[in-house]
Every structure is written in C-alpha cells, then in structure tokens.
C-alpha cells in the first residue's frame, strides 16, 4: 500500500476476478518478455513526508536565496515584491488541479481568469488582442518571429543585438530548424543601430525585433525603427517589460505589430529561471495568426455571458501539422498569478512600482558613479537597470559582494565583450541603506 494508491490487496484481487486474470502479470501480457524489466528501478525507497522534508531542506541549505542576499541582479529575471494575496489565491486547488478548460461549463473560473488576463495585457501594451500566454518571453519572441515569417511569406528576421541574449539564442534555435535566416542588427552606444538597420533591410525581411527597455535597461526610441520597418512592409516585433509600461510609451503608441515579453515580473517568483510566462499581443489584423490558446466571450443556451476557448482552428489538435504552432498549453497558473498581481496593483500601484524602481535605480547609478571608479557604459535614459564599467571583472566584484551578503550584477563581458562591465538592477524592494552599502563596498573592492 502506498498513501497515494488506495486499492487494497483485497480490492486488487476482486478487480482481477472481474477482469478475468490471476495476477498483475496478466495485465502486461502484451509486452514481450524480453522487454519486461526484470530488476527493480535503481531509485530510492519510497519516503515519508518527514523524510522528504528533511532531504529537501538539506538541499535548500546549499542554496542562498534572495531572502538571504540583497539582490541587485536582473538581466531578464526580477526581484519585485509579491503581495501576500497572490500566492494565497493562486494556490487554490480548484485552479491548480484543473486540466485545460476543454469543458467550458465546469471551467468558467480558469476561462474568465484568462479572459481578464488577455484584457489586462491589452491594457498594458495598448494592443488589440492577446493570447492566453506562452512558455516565456524568449519563446514568445520566437513564436512572434514565426508568425511574421508565415504572414509576410518572407524568410529573414532582423534582431537587434540589444535584445536579451537568452531570447536571441532561443530565436536562433527555433529559426535554424525552419531554415529562417536570423540577421543581427549591431548596436551603437547601447541602442539599436538604425543606420545599419537601413542597410540590412531588404525584400526578404519578415520582421524587425527590438527590445525596450533593452538588455542594458536602456529605453529605446522606436520611432525611427518603426518608420524603416513599415516602410519595408516588414512587421515590427517589440519585446517589452510589463512593469515599465506603467510609465513608458506602449508598443501600440509606437505602431508595433506584435508585442511580446516575459511577465515573470508580475508576481511570479524567481524560481531559478522558471516557470515564467511569455505574453504575446498583436493587432486585430493578425488575430487569427496568433499561436497558442485564446479565450473568447460568448453566450450559453440561456443567453448568459460565458467564456470559451476560441479560434481553435489555428491549433495543433485541429490543424495538426498546419497549425500556427505546436503549443498546446499556456502558462496558466503564471497567467493567474500575473492577473492577481495586476489587479492588486491596479493602475496606480503598478505606476508606483515603476516609479520607485526608476528613481532608486537612478539614485544607485549616481551613488555608484560618484566616486569616479565606476562609470556608466552608456549615457542614456534607463529603466530599473544600468550598465557600469569598473576597475575589475564583474565575477571578481560579485565574489566580494557575496561575502557581504549582496547578490551582484550580471557580467557583461560574456555576451557583449564589455570588459569589466556589470549590469545592475534596482527594484522597488531595495532600500537606500542597501544601495548605500553596495556603493560603499564598490569603492573598497
């Protein structure tokens, strides 16, 4: 007997009688004998909860979390405050033990949550329509690229070097298998080089992908890029940060065709990299080209407002190999979390998070550069993150900071070859005192 398996031996015997077999082996008679595993799996013996908890805490003790350390690390995953109610509500088992809402009559909870999520993603980005979410920001960007290729019937994607390196790597893997060309737009002084974009663009350019705030935290002005892109009848894909949208110009205000990004920042734990949540929003024109699940509003037989998965003819279970994507799931729980977070913050709260992150980041930047030992890598307006160049390699710096209980920034040498470059992140969670401590330490390290 195992606590998760209720059949007793007597049950099993009675059930075998009904089936007409003598032993469990009778159930597996179709498996040829040479394929039957004749030894036990080499795994642990089953454990009690108490043993599991002990083992997991031992493993946990080998980690240092952002509760133990003061986090100045960002670069695509952010340590924002998560209100208490988020996890209380998201952990309701009616949500997390449900399957995909294929039976809408008993899934209105999930379906309405997604409908509201879609509405709020549109509310942030200004776009016309949103899907129910994708795996993460990087795959959302890759899906957007495929959408552009399919829609324009062109085969080259131009992607700015200031787009998150993880995103570009994922894009590259996806593109390789479909023989889509990826061309990198160089950067100049920390932003997309629009002059180079002009020369790189041609009749095969399906889309241009940019990110703002970009990987360095710099807010890119997309006005020029938009003109060039649409002038070439290519699509403009913009990767954005949802919190920044509380203050920054929205994708729709720039005329973006597809807005993507990662909504981890909206109430999701850092989770050592996942699960996070990718969002994808677009124009009405491209609505039926979106990948992934979409929820729509309709009426039931009594005329009552009801929600249902819709536009399913795009999807794999119907179109099979002609589907817009192979994706089946959305990041439903993460979308739920993001929704609860957005609702809890509201219009003003989200703005406050964005404002405090900005002003604290600026305060940190001034404080850290005041001594002259560190200088800004790029002198441009930024959001939440900024790149500094200092006297030593960021790994060495971070090592020292760690011994002082600080989780330092992202080393910009690896992906960008910026020697002694470090990308620091300051969210609303950081205090003046913590920032001052960081600044004081960098002076002596």
């Amino acid at each position, binding site marked *: 007997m195992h606590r998760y398996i209720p059949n007793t031996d007597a049950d099993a015997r009675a059930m075998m009688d009904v089936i007409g077999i003598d032993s469990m082996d009778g159930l597996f008679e179709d498996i040829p004998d040479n394929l039957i595993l004749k030894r036990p799996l080499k795994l642990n013996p089953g454990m009690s909860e108490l043993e599991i908890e002990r083992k997991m805490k031992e493993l946990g003790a080998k980690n240092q979390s952002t509760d133990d350390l003061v986090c100045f690390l960002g670069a695509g995953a952010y340590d924002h405050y998560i209100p208490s109610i988020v996890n209380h509500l998201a952990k309701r088992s009616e949500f997390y033990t449900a399957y995909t809402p294929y039976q809408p009559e008993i899934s209105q909870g999930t379906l309405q949550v997604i409908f509201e999520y879609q509405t709020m993603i549109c509310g942030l980005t200004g776009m016309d329509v949103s899907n129910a979410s994708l795996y993460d920001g990087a795959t959302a960007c890759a899906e957007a690229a495929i959408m552009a290729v399919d829609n324009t019937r062109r085969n080259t994607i131009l992607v700015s070097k200031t787009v998150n390196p993880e995103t570009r790597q994922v894009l590259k893997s996806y593109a390789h298998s479909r023989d889509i060309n990826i061309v990198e737009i160089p950067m100049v002084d920390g932003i997309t080089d629009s002059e180079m974009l002009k020369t790189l663009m041609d009749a095969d350019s399906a889309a241009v992908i940019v990110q703002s705030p970009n990987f360095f935290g710099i807010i890119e002005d997309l006005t020029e890029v938009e003109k060039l892109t649409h002038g070439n009848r290519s699509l403009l894909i913009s990767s954005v940060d949802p919190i920044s949208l509380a203050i920054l110009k929205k994708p729709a205000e720039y005329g973006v065709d597809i807005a993507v990004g990662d909504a981890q920042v909206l109430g999701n734990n850092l989770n050592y990299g996942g699960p996070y949540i990718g969002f994808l929003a677009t124009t009405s024109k491209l609505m*039926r080209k979106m990948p992934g699940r979409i929820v729509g509003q309709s009426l039931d037989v009594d005329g009552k407002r009801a929600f249902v998965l819709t*536009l*399913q*003819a*795009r999807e794999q279970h*119907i*179109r099979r190999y*002609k589907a817009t994507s192979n994706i089946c799931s959305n990041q439903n729980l993460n979308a739920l979390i993001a929704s609860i977070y957005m609702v809890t913050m509201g219009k003003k709260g989200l703005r406050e998070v964005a404002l405090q992150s900005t002003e604290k980041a600026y305060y940190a930047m001034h404080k850290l550069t005041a001594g002259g030992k560190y200088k800004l890598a790029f002198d441009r307006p930024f959001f939440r993150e900024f790149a500094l160049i200092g006297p030593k390699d960021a790994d060495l710096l971070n090592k020292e900071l760690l011994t002082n209980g600080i989780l330092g920034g992202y080393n910009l040498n690896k992906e960008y070859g910026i020697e002694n470059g470090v990308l620091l992140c300051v969210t609303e969670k950081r205090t003046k005192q913590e920032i001052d401590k960081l600044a004081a330490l960098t002076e002596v390290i």
Partner: protein
Amino acid sequence: MKTIKGLYYTKDHEWVKVDGNKAMVGITDYAQHALGEIVYVELPEMDEVYKAGDVFCVIESVKAAADSFAPVSGKVVEINEELEDSPEFLNEDPYDNWIMAVEMNNPSELEDLMDDEAYKKFCEKEE
C-alpha cells in the same frame, strides 16, 4: 446534397463556373455540410497567381479547418469580401457565394474536372 448543372467540380469539393476566360470558384454543398458551421474564411489576395492544386483559401469551422485547392491555374481578379464578415453565407448558399474569380491561363484544365453527375457519384462513394 445539392449540385448545379453546368458547373465543374473537383475531388476536393470545389466548384467552378466559367464565364469566358474567367472562372468563379467556390465550395460545394457537400463541403459546407462536412465542415459544419463555418466561422471564418481566409480569403486569397488579389493578383495572387495559383497553379491548379495550390491552396488558395482556408475555411474554418469550430472544430475543423479545411484547405481549398485551386481547381484551375490563373490570377485572382476578384474576391468575395462579403465572406470576411459573413462566413455563414457559405453554409446558407454555397453556390451563390463564390470565393474568388481567377483569370484562367490554361482553360484546358477544365477537362480534368467532373460534371455534376460525375461529382454526385463521386460523393456517394466518399460517404
């Protein structure tokens, strides 16, 4: 199942009505019935050139999506934009509601298609 005399039919359940060098193309009653309630028609674009057998249009119902194949080769000279907002017209009268008109560049391809009698028999076999 309804068919109309004088039209040409394909094995993929499209019909063609010839008007000089112009061919009006739609889907048959059999096709609309098989699909069920049609919710969306992805129309071809003007001036697009298709070879016979190319996919020129995708028709979606709630639980299915079907490609429609060009019965004859040619350039698209007209599209029925009404279907964009009212896809249900294809259910209501599939022969009155054509999808596109092409300027045929090889009318001899019509010889490969069926007449209404042959098509009727073909559909009976499909059942």
